[in-house]
């Protein structure tokens, strides 16, 4: 059963990757990266069960936490960029 789920997740990862490669805007790519991250978390959890070693859920937990930081860093990056743009326009 886990196999079915993991195949579904893998398929979604492919779709997300396609989106990330296609773009067209950078936000699509960021979104795809984010989706990719969450899917990795799921995949890891499912595989941990597939292996019969649920103690490895730590990993998935770490991913879930880290993924968020990445996305917020991107937001911060955009914010900075738009601020700089505004400043440049001021000058």
């Amino acid at each position, binding site marked *: 059963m886990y196999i079915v*789920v993991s195949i*579904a997740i893998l398929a979604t990862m492919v779709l997300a990757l396609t989106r990330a490669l296609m773009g067209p805007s950078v936000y699509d790519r960021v979104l795809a990266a984010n989706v990719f991250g969450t899917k990795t978390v799921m995949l890891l959890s499912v595989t941990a069960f597939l292996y019969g070693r649920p103690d490895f859920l*730590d990993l998935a937990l770490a991913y879930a936490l880290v993924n968020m930081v990445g996305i917020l860093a991107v937001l911060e990056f955009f914010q900075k960029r738009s601020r700089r743009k505004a400043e440049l326009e001021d000058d």
Partner: protein
Amino acid sequence: MIDILIDVFSWVLLILGGVCVLIGGIGGLRLPNFYTRIHAASLTDTMGAILIFVGMMLQSGLTLATLKLFAIMLFLLLTGPTATYALANAALLSGLKPDTGSNHDEVEKEEPAE
């Protein structure tokens, strides 16, 4: 008996979750522009995550693993919307217009640098 019931129930949840995830993926690819794709991603993300993790929790019973699974689920549920918010906000800030209906992709190509 109860075991079988739980098993069946969790499998159903897992499969539903898988379907949700897949749908979300397809939506992310097929929907016409950025803001619609955000919907696909975030909605099915949360739903899929809940279904899959609850399914797994049922499988593992009352162990440390369940706690971890719950934590992971919680974090996914928390970060998903945050990320979506962040992205939508960023896109809006930098001028990607949320027009529905028309395909805006051709108008706004990749962000020019600075």
